[in-house]
Each structure stands twice: as structure tokens, then as C-alpha cells.
């Protein structure tokens, strides 16, 4: 098996409930692994705990308990090393409208501490790779949705991260922009990178993910390849599998 780049064990996040003084468990005992060259799907309904889990992995949130290692770095003790190892993108991620596409990509490269010479050549090559050279000096506000998504992906991977964390990256996108994103994910996986991909769209998970974890009410209910899930449930379609898993009483 390839090198494991994301490993979580018993990852839990609770919030104080301001209404009744109790606790809200946004994620509970989440454990999984994701290796290089793999797309690992986190499949769940809205509010299932996907975003909370991804935010703990991106160090935006601190786990209440449990551990998580990203590219060999602990999210608690080495959050900056974790952030330097990841590229993060969600469907609601926007662009700085008044920056050009090139400036946008360069800005995130600078935030990742890339040296000026290396950054310039990397930005040139990534602009070429995504086919946005014609629009590279156009302000982001004037770009089409598809072009904006390309710029967004380009700025996510400008520092060539070994781990990509995508939180419902196609939500709110039109078909062409969504396809651009999914094609990119496949290509990135083929480069040997680790991709953690959260979605509530079954077809995306079926098409794209090497392994899938079904998350519901903060807990992972099932994990495996699509074939594993089919054989364990006796169902063929992921939608049916998902429905059965989330409606089963928790053991």
C-alpha cells in the first residue's frame, strides 16, 4: 500500500449547546486513513459532520479529542506544517474579485512561503497547465464561472501540496465547472497525490472515489471501496447503500 498521508483516530469535535447548556457533537470518533494516489470520499448529508472533520484536518478547528496526522504532522502540535502540506478548496470558496488571475495564484503561493523565483516559474507553468494564460491578467470578477473555478483550483495547488482537501467542491457550480473540478481531481490522484473529497452527491462519489466513508450524525457508519460496500450491504447502487447505512440503528 502507498504511504498513508492522512490518518485520523477517534477524531471528535464538540461544541457547547448555548440553548440547553449541554454539548453538540459535530463529529464523533472519526477514524480513517487516506494514502498517496488515492481519492477518499467522505459521503454524507448536509450537517453530517463532513465539514467539521475537514476543518479539523485543515487545522481551522482544534479537535476536542482524538488525533489526526497529515503528511506526518500532527494537527495539534504542528498546525502550520499541516497547512503547508495541504491544498483546501470548497464549493463556496470565492476569489478576490479585484485581483487578476495571476495575482490571485501568486498571492496564495506567497502565503505558502514560496520564493519569488520559484513562484514565478510555478505560476507560469500552472497558468499554462490550466489553460488560463489568455485570461491571466484579467480581474477575477470578469471571468466566467468555469474560468473562475480553474483559477480557484490553480491557487489551491500552486504550492504543489501532497494532500488535497476538497469540501463539496462542486456545490453551486454549473456542469462544465463541476466537470473541470472532477477531471482535475482524477489527474491529481494520478500524480500520486492524496485527495480527501467530501460530497453529498452519490454519482460523484461513485465515479471518483477509490474508497468511501459514509458519515452520518457525526460518526462514520461504513468505510470501504464501492465493491466492499456493495458486498457488505448486498445492494448495487450507492444511493441504496447510503440509505440503508444511515437508517440502520447504531450498534
Amino acid at each position, binding site marked *: 500500500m502507498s504511504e498513508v498521508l492522512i490518518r485520523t483516530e477517534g477524531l471528535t469535535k464538540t*461544541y*457547547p449547546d*448555548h440553548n440547553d447548556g449541554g454539548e453538540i457533537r459535530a463529529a464523533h470518533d472519526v477514524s480513517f486513513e487516506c494514502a498517496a494516489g488515492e481519492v477518499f470520499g467522505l459521503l454524507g448529508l448536509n450537517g453530517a459532520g463532513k465539514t467539521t472533520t475537514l*476543518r479539523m484536518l*485543515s*487545522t*481551522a*478547528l*482544534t479537535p476536542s479529542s482524538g488525533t489526526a496526522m497529515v503528511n506526518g504532522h500532527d494537527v495539534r502540535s504542528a498546525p*502550520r*506544517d499541516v*497547512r*503547508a502540506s*495541504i491544498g*483546501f*478548496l*470548497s464549493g*463556496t*470558496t*470565492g*476569489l*478576490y*474579485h*479585484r*485581483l487578476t488571475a495571476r*495575482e490571485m495564484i501568486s*498571492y*496564495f503561493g*506567497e*502565503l*505558502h*512561503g514560496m520564493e519569488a523565483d520559484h513562484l514565478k516559474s510555478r505560476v507560469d507553468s500552472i497558468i499554462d497547465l490550466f489553460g488560463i494564460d489568455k485570461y491571466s491578467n484579467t*480581474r477575477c470578477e470578469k471571468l466566467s464561472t468555469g474560468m473562475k473555478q480553474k483559477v480557484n483550483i490553480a*491557487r*489551491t495547488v500552486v504550492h504543489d501540496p501532497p494532500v488535497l*482537501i476538497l469540501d463539496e467542491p462542486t456545490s453551486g457550480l454549473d456542469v462544465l465547472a463541476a466537470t473541470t473540478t472532477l477531471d482535475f481531481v482524477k489527474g491529481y490522484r494520478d500524480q500520486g497525490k492524496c485527495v480527501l473529497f467530501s460530497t453529498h452527491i452519490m454519482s460523484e462519489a461513485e465515479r471518483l472515489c477509490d474508497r468511501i466513508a459514509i458519515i452520518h450524525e457525526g460518526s462514520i457508519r461504513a468505510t470501504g471501496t464501492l465493491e466492499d460496500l456493495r458486498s457488505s450491504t448486498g445492494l448495487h447502487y450507492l444511493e441504496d447503500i447510503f440509505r440503508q447505512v444511515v437508517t440502520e440503528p447504531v450498534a
Partner: protein
Amino acid sequence: MSRSRSAAGAWTVLRKEIREALRDRNLVLQLILVPAFLYPLMGFGAYQVFLISQGAAEGKVTTVWVDTDAPEVISAPLLERSNVVVEPVPDELDHPDRAPDAAEFRAARDAWSESDGEPPAVMLSWHRDSAGSDVATIAFDSSRDQSEQSREWLEDSVVAYRDSIVLETARAVGLDRGDVELYDLDLQNTASSRELGRYILSLMLPFFLMIMLAQGCYYSSLDTVVGERERGTLETVLSSPIERSRLLQGKFLYVVISSLVAFLLNLISLTVFLTFVLRLMDVGDNLQFTVAPLNVALMVVTAVLISASLAAVMMLVCVPARSYREGQAALMPVYMVASFSGVVVLMKQGDFTVQQALIPIINVVGLLKALLAGEPPIVPMLVTFAVLAVLAVVSMRYASSLASQEGAFFDPEISLKRLMRMGGGKS
């Protein structure tokens, strides 16, 4: 990550914020164009109004009613004015034993206005009281410029006539002018043209400068904090390796710089404008609007310190806002307090005191006023600097500690109250 690389992160954020701001029409308008052109536009507008009103006044005929019993010499100075017409008081108001009261004059004036057009601006009636003394009564309307102006002309003329009678009588009994008037009153103004200019500057300029400082912080805080959330770029920035404190520093510097740019442009614009106006008015050496370089430097120090505090407070207030509208609503009370509470100092006569120096905003306006007016009082100035420095450090540290709380950006139910409780460790 090394310290220098961390600092470079703040610099990267600052450069990006400035670049974006310079491309934002609203921000450029509010922070650069308004301060730069505020005074020229206001001055130009006022000058045009002045020209129009002067032209209107010159072309307008003022009618003055003068009692036929009044000595003719009183009307003479009025008749020398090309735009004044002197007419006798109408018979219905010409009482032999008393002057018509204000109500009668008003009624007659209104009736005249309806039937004969331009009403009289002022009326002088003349009668002798029961003790045998002549009484001159001037009826006028202080709510009308034309009437007020005519009243002054008429009053000067009546007083001059009385003085001439007194002198004439004194000469008749062998007294000269000195025996009658006893003394001359000679007014000597010790204010130099420069001091007079400074005094005029200190009347309103501190108020405008404080508004500009608050405005600079207001717009840039909204843009850099709420804008980041509304555009959906916040989470991606927070998932980059830059330390949250460095991110905050970069944004904080941007807000302070915006505020100072608005402040300095305001100051420069006013200086240039006043120089232009002085030439236009041809006042020569009577008025000089110059402030000593040291005072300007001290004003900039004051501006830096209050900008730092305002920037920290305004950025903090913006954190829970999910949209520009929410951000504007949250910031408005802070903006109003920062902009207008200093008016108290401008309305109050007297020196800048230590007590005033202890109250933020009041101390800024008070110190700016003192620095514009002349030599600043050392102790209140030092107290002001100390208060502002402490306030700036405390607000920056507090804002920084709150911004480092994960709930500040990711709690969907975050509010300013809850954010403050986080600062108190009650999250």
C-alpha cells in the same frame, strides 16, 4: 517557519489589501477623493453661493420707511446707497404720540407686500414722549438678512446724528470734544496674523480630521474583514500556513494606513485650499494658515495612535458580521461615537486639560485643536499619548486574542456578545 518569513506573510497580506483597495472605486472615493477634494468643493460651493447672494443683494432694492418727523440728516447716508429707497412712513402708522408697535409694522408690511410688491425692510419712527424727549424707534425683522442689514445702517445713522448733536451742544457752551467724550476707546488686537489663522483652523479642523480618521477605519475594516467572509476567501486563507496573528497584522496595518492616508490628505487638501482662498480673497498678511512642523509631526503621532485603537476595535466589531449590511449596522455606532463625540471639545471654551486628556476621542480632538491653535500644553499632551498608546496596545492584543479563537470565524451563531465572552474565556 522563521520569524522573518512570518513577517513577510504580514507584508504579503498588506500589499494584497492595498492593491485591492486601490482598485475599489468606493474605497478610492471615500478614502482618497473625498479627503482630497472635500475642501476645494466646499469652498467652491460656498464661493458660488456668496457670489450669487452678493449679486442678488446688489441688484435688489431695499425700501426703508422713515418718519417725516425724523431729521433729514438721518436719511442722508441711506440715500447715498444706490440700492436703497427711502419712503415716508404710511399715515396709518404715523401716530403723533407713540411709535407703532412691532405687530402694526408687520401687518402694514405684509399688506404692502400683497398690494405694492417689495415690502419695506425696516422702519424708523420718530416721536416725542411725555417727558419731552425725542424717541427714535426702529422696527425690523431679524429673520431676514436684508432687514437686519438695513437696521444696522439706520442705527449707525441715528447714533451718529445723536453724537453730532451732543458735540454741537458742547461747543455752544464752550466745551470741546475731549470734555464731552471723556476718553477714546482704542482696541488693540495682539493676535498675529499667524495666530489668528491658527485659531480659525482650530475651530473646525479637528472635527473634520477625526471624521476622516474614523471613516478611513470604517471602510477599510468592512472591506478587509467582512469582505473576506462574504467573498468566501476566509477559509482558504486560514488554511494556508500564514499564522493567524500575521494575517491579522497585515490587515490591521492596512486599516491604519487607510485611515492615515485619509487624515493626511485631508490636512494637505485644507492647506492647499486655504492658500488658494487667501490669494482669492486678497487678505494679504492679515491671515496666515501655517502650522509649525513640530506640531504637524505631533498631530501625525496622535493620528497614528488613535487609528491603531480604532482599527482594532472596528475590525473586532466586524468579525461576527456575515454580510456588508450586518457589518455596516454593527460598525455604525462605533463610527458615530468616534466621529462626533469630539464636538464637545470644540463647543467648550478654554484650554485642553488633563481631565480631557484621559478620555479617548475627546483627547484626540482636544489635542488636535491645541496643536493647531499654537503651543500644546505639555502635560495633557503626554497624558493623551499615554492613554492612546495603552488603548491601542490593549485593543490590538484583545482583538488578536479573540481572532485566534476558532469560534470567531467558524461558529455559525457567532455574535459580538459571544465573541466578547470568548475573550473572557467563557466560550
